[in-house]
């Protein structure tokens, strides 16, 4: 990957992040100690935003890979591509991150195939190196390089659990939805609504999260609360906004949708 391209991955503005606990200090310490980090927590609770924020703080470029079932080792490491008369090597995101001492963030790492995940193993122990088989070279990671993966322990089936040999290469930082006051602050800030509306939305969110395990796989995320707030800020009636952002997306079950709607009308 050409040198200037990496600059595109550098964050120029501070991404908004409100610390809930010690996660910023922990992350910084892990970076200094060159430890890979696993971020655990439900969908939409701010893991990705946190990584962005930390990349900005540490002044490192951030390369994010959303993992999926068909993500292969080639996709991560790189491949030769035919360009005109010649074959040219293209770094994959992981290689590029290692080369540039960036933070590489593998989002939802369990979604990737197990054979794919294995290639990060040499990077995550004391060796900190990435073998590039196709070119027959080995890339040593610079001090600044950092591997961060995220993982949602809640909803995946057992089949998609992380292997112990993988898990035990990381330090883990737990995430959850922020406490109500902080969440209201986040919703107000990100969604552009007044404090009262934000507090209402957070209250609804809390109540809906109570249904986790009683029919809902996962509660409504902070992200969805922000979406609802954004819609409200644009003049959509709050009840409608709450419905399209907080009820329909999380369940298809009519009864559940109805009960969430009743909660919305109870609060707003």
């Amino acid at each position, binding site marked *: 990957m050409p040198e200037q391209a990496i600059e595109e991955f550098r964050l120029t503005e501070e991404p908004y992040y409100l610390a809930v606990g010690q996660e910023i200090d922990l992350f910084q310490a892990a970076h200094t100690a060159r430890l890979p980090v696993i971020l655990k927590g439900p969908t939409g609770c701010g893991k990705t935003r946190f990584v962005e924020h930390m990349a900005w703080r540490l002044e490192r470029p951030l390369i994010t890979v959303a993992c999926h079932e*068909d993500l292969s080792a*080639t996709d991560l490491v790189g491949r030769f591509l035919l360009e005109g008369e010649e074959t040219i090597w293209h770094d994959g995101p992981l290689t590029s991150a290692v080369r540039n001492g960036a933070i590489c963030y593998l989002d939802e790492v369990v979604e990737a195939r197990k054979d794919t995940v294995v290639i990060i193993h040499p990077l995550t122990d004391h060796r900190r190196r990435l073998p590039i088989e196709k070119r027959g070279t080995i890339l040593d990671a610079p001090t600044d390089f950092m591997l961060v993966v995220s993982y949602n322990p809640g909803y995946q089936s057992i089949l998609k659990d992380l292997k112990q040999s993988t898990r035990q290469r990381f330090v883990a930082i737990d995430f959850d939805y922020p406490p109500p006051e902080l969440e209201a602050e986040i919703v107000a800030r990100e969604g552009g609504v007044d404090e009262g509306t934000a507090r209402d939305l957070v209250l609804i969110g809390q109540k809906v999260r*109570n249904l986790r395990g009683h029919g809902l796989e996962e509660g409504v995320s902070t992200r969805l609360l922000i979406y609802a707030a954004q819609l409200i800020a644009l003049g959509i009636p709050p009840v409608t906004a709450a419905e399209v952002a907080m009820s329909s997306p999380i369940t298809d079950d009519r009864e559940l949708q109805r009960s969430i709607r009743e909660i919305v*009308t109870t609060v707003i």
Partner: protein
Amino acid sequence: MGKESDPTNRRQQGGTNSQDNAEPDVSEKRVADRQSVIELTRDLARLPLDQAAAAVEISAGIAGVSLRASIEFLRAAKEASGILSPAELRGWGELGRRLAMADVESGVAFFAAGVEGLRDVPEDSRALLFQLCSRQMTLSSSIAGDTFRDLPKLARSVANPEMLRSILEIAAEISRRSAKHSAEFLNSTPLVRKTLGRFDDDSVAERSLALTAAFAARAGGVAADAWSALPAALANLDSDRSLHLLEQTNIFLERGGGAALHVLTAGGEILRALPEIFDEWIELLWLMAAHGNASLVAFIRSTPRFIRGFSSDAERQRSIELSRCVLSLTGEIAKIDGEAALACFRSSSHALRTVSIEQFERWVRDGLSRDRADTRARRSYFALETRGSHDALHSGGNGLALESVQPLLRLYVEALTGRQVDVAPLSAVPVESRIGDGRTIHLPSLIAEFGDDDLDFRLYKVLAAHGAGQIEFGTYVRDTPGLRAAYVALTEAYSQDNVDARDAFALDGYINELEKGEAALSPKEETRRAKAALKKLPADSDYRRVLEVFPHAQLARRIFATLENGRIDRRLRHQYRGLRRDLDLVREHLRRNRPRIEDLPAALVPFELLFQITLLGGVLDDARQYYSQVTSELETVVADYISSPTATVADSLMGASRVYSLFQSIAPADDAVQQMEMQQEPSESEEESMVSSERQQMRRSTPEPQRKDARELFNAWNDPNAEGDPDELEGAEAWLEAETPEMKLEEGEVAYNYDEWDRDLTDHRIGWCRVIEKRVKHGDRAFVDQTRERHKGVISSIRYQFQLMKPENLTRVVNEVDGEEYDLNAVIDYVIDRRADGHQSERLYTKRLRRQRDVAVSFLLDQSSSTARTIGRHPLQPYTRPGRRIIEIEKEGLVLMSEALEAVGDVYAINGFTSEGRRNVKFYVVKDFSEKYTDEVKRRIGGITYQNNTRLGAAIRHATAKLARQDARTRLLIVISDGRPYDHDYGDARYAREDTREALRQAKIQGITPFCITIDRESEAELRDLYGEIGYTIIDDVLSLPERLPGIYRRLTT
């Protein structure tokens, strides 16, 4: 009396003589005997002539039976003559003679025992005794002997000559038909006598005896049962009620002894629990009696259970009303159809646990107005067996039924509270253990306040939110500092030392005279009291414990309940802005329906005012006009205590204390309480629930009975004395007296209930079949091994075929725009194309994709005894070609299938079933989806055997339910049967077929593909009737099943 027994006598004589002869030293012994006979006879000569004559005569008779017995008689005769008259002596001797005829030893023992005991027995009873014993004797000599022996003891325990005579008369009467029963009768007498002795009024005993005599005359042995049932029946009854019961039982004797006996026992129970309804019950019995004794007896027998379901100490008056209502409704049905009435009566207790009495009544009326011709349908309706009936009960006519919104409300409440909360109907007979436990919210089973479903739902929502609010805002909290402080403060305020202070606090100095009477206390006593006053709130207590501190706990409870509702209302309004709309809606509704304040009796005015202030957002204009002073006082309390957004239950309690004092000052508390009590049962305890009092209040004040609901709605406080007995009944089944006996579940077994389709009713019968999931007993894995050996060739070819079906874990897809690897051919083409014309395809890559077979299959195997038939036996060579049982062939098919499925890797389960009536459908899990094909499973396959019947529908429903939980795209249910569903209570052949078809259709609706393999050829048309549009195949040559099964499977899944 001797004449008719003479022939026997003679026969016996020979027998006994030979016995005597058989003894050793016969001749010597005889000599000795003769001597003693002479001596003894000489002694007798001293007796009065007639007695001596009688004795000699009898001894001669006895000697004909046994010489030893005769000697024993002569020995005892002297004594006996002093006690017995000559006639009695004869009777005695005759008894002994006949005893000796049966067994010499007992005869000897009989005489040896003498008649000393009879000394205390009045003469007239002795004659009866001899009569009784001789009657018993003809049936059983040993019983007669026992009777004679035990009589003195009996006479002592009865201790009343007249009664003894009556008892013996009855026993003699019974013994005409049954010696055993007469003995039982006498045996239970001491206990009965004790019971009867309890009554001051002798007439109870007289009537009991008369009744038993009537029983004996009419029904013989049943009299003994009736007699021994008396203590239980009359237990805890006063003499008036006992007499009433005895009289009614007597009248019922005309319906036979069995019916009357049941009336006696069940009637006793009613008189103990709910004496008020006894007469109605008797009336109903006569209605039932018109339909024959079977219905009558069944009805009476189900009564105790009915009574137990209804009587609850907390709400007596209500229980009476309810059971009256049920009885009169049952009576209406009984006028038409006895069995339907019985069914209705039995289902009533169950029904009333889920719906209100109004709904129940409507349900009954609906049932009555249905088709009158079809008695079977009507019976099923009232037995609550059909879905239609069930729906009719719960939905009611108009209004919104809780059942339709219950899951929704439960989710709503769970979301609000974040706890596992149940929503249950506030039914006519609440399940007591669940009231006030803080985990169950009780809501009315039907709301028809607004005549509009949306508005009715909003009312439900408000009520649910109130229930949730009680949980969220800590009504049921225990041991909080606030509660402890309230407890201490209130204990101090209401302890006796502080009466004066309290008097000063109250406005017009209401004084409890009891406390005033004690003037001076010893210092010791005073410190003890002071300590008691300062005692702490017991651990693990909630508001209920604190309420007990008030002298008039009931008054305090009512005030507290209203205040607490007000507090919850305020907190809900504060916390949930959106809910205010709904709360206002309900508030407006309630306001519209308030009674005019001047119409209320004075004692109820304060409560009405408090209700208006706390829950209606302020006093109505008319009330303010009349009671401005009190109103402003109450408003101050409400503002001080419960209006803060952080008010807790302790604040409500302290507020209640203020209002309590205030109420005592405006209306003397005694009056208020009295007035309340007057409306209720006088014997009511302080733990009276506020519901009934409020309801009664409403009844007085509003003409329309419907409106009472609106107020009652805010009532989770149904019965504050909640820690009652846990519900002794387990589920609905306990209420349905199943005619089909249910097998006991073995340990670890689980039973499931399934509906069944009734083609006559064109409706489902709810929970009709019980499917028991069982593990197969272990067999031998030899069966599997042999089958594998026998079909070795077939298996290997099947495995091969199935392996071909198995997709590669990863498939390589060529011609992709991007991918992991180059496709070399495509690259070559690319280069060539480029060189040739510059137009080249971009699709150069290969990709590896995951492909999965996503199949779950469940095999359901008919294990009924019809599969024991042997097929393929060669008629001419039965030994060399013996044929095989269908079940064995089915099992072979399963073995081959398992091999095939292991090869392809599909998830599969193997189940078998048989049935013995609808409550005992046995479902054998040979291999569950999650199990591996282990030795264990192989042994189980070997252990499959045939038995009983084929209730196909229930088995299919259970297999479907299990399969539906599997998470596969293709779900296949393969039923292997002989195509003839049958069970002894499975209706006719068409009924069974239609139920099966319905079960298969339901499976299909659930996204399961059923497929039926029929082993035996039935007529094609019937099979089509059985399987409907479901796929099926018939295997003509049964022996080919094992080979064909995998082929069928392959066709179905590819």
